């Protein structure tokens, strides 16, 4: 079934398809993945989906993302599914997972946190994958990922 939906946008010969991105977040996902200037990228927005009603999709031609790279989008697309395509066939599928440690991706919402005052990277530890809830390494407060702004 998924394959049929994927075919709505031009099929890619080799590359990566990221499906089940929450509708409206495709641009933020791309901002995190930072495709190279030469990458051929297709964005699909507001596709209908049984599970999510509406969803966004990204296809990147000629580039295979690995689990680690894709995990960086887990906070804004927690249910995203990734397919690696070779010669029009899906050769590998995996889900994004929230990494145990999240560095330099999101801001700490606590205005009294040192990360908001000094030129430094933020660092969070995953405390509850269901939220997901993240604990700031510095001020030690725990926040739900959707309270957090991306850097």
């Amino acid at each position, binding site marked *: 079934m998924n394959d049929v939906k994927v075919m709505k946008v031009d099929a890619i010969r080799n590359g990566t398809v990221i499906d089940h991105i929450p509708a409206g977040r495709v641009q933020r996902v791309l901002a995190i993945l930072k495709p190279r200037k030469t990458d051929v990228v297709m964005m699909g927005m507001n596709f209908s989906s049984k599970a999510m009603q509406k969803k966004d999709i990204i296809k990147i031609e000629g580039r295979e993302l690995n689990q680690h790279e894709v995990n960086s989008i887990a906070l804004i697309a927690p249910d995203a599914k990734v397919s690696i395509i070779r010669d029009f066939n899906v050769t590998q599928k995996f889900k994004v997972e929230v990494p145990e440690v999240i560095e330099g991706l999101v801001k700490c919402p*606590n205005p*009294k*946190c*040192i*990360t908001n*005052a*000094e*030129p*430094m990277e933020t660092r969070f530890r995953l405390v509850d994958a269901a939220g997901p809830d993240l604990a*700031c*390494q*510095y*001020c*030690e*407060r*725990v926040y739900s990922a959707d309270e957090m702004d991306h850097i």
Partner: protein
Amino acid sequence: MKNLISMRDLSANKIRQLLDLAESLEKDPSQIDLSRRVMAAVFYEASTRTRMSFESAMKRLGGEVIAMVGTSGTSVEKGETLADTAKVMARYSDIIVMRHPMEGAARYVSEQVDVPVVNAGDGANQHPTQSLLDLYTIKKAQGTLEGLKLALVGDLKYGRTVHSLAYALAPFNPEFYFISPRSLCMPIHILSDLTRMGVKFTEKKKIEKIVDHVDIMYVTRIQRERFPDREEYEKVKNAYIITADLLKNARDNLKVLHPLPRVNEITTDVDSTKYAYYFDQAENGVYMRQAILATLLGEVKS
């Protein structure tokens, strides 16, 4: 143990080691010699008690102290980053004791320098040396930390000290009474943490009924600076005043603690009762900080 940043980093075993060492140093400080060692007290905001207690601890073990107190007239005012200030202080000293208004500042500094760092308070986050001296004081007053009944009284919402004390005691099977006006009650996330840890607690608005139930009464000041609304402060500021009369039916072993400074939460007629223990608590801070300095400076096998 390289640094002391947060109570969360300390195992129950490590806490026990520090309590034992503090006890042993109280009896015989001559076992540790910190001569020719320099402690840098880097205080971005004023503090009398914590800083002087650290200085006393260091000097009584033979060490030296250099200090920056407040940022006025310092390189900080010229726009120096925290990391740069800390790196320079690390070149001048063997250990940094630091207080900063931003939460997580001590952790950040500990990542930037090679010398040990002690967090002497980072905003509303952590003040682990206070928590440890409170544990030491409670153990000394009652002979044990196990199975005690404790009333925490006053500002339980903003009071960093009572939050971290509740966590620090949680492994020792305590029974808490949280006494506060409704607007200053213990935050819900702490209550749910305690529930998860199986800790027994009761929230109450009045203190009278539990006075004869508890072994420890830990009183905190209701801080005016926490209230944006002056009227709200006036309503709650005199909510709990501990007097000698209030304590007339207390248990024989009751001890009243207070991190100090007090304003009017404990009347001076309590001072001469057997229940008063807050000045002993302040003195205990020196022994506990000696134990911390000696451990972090590598003078103790651990």
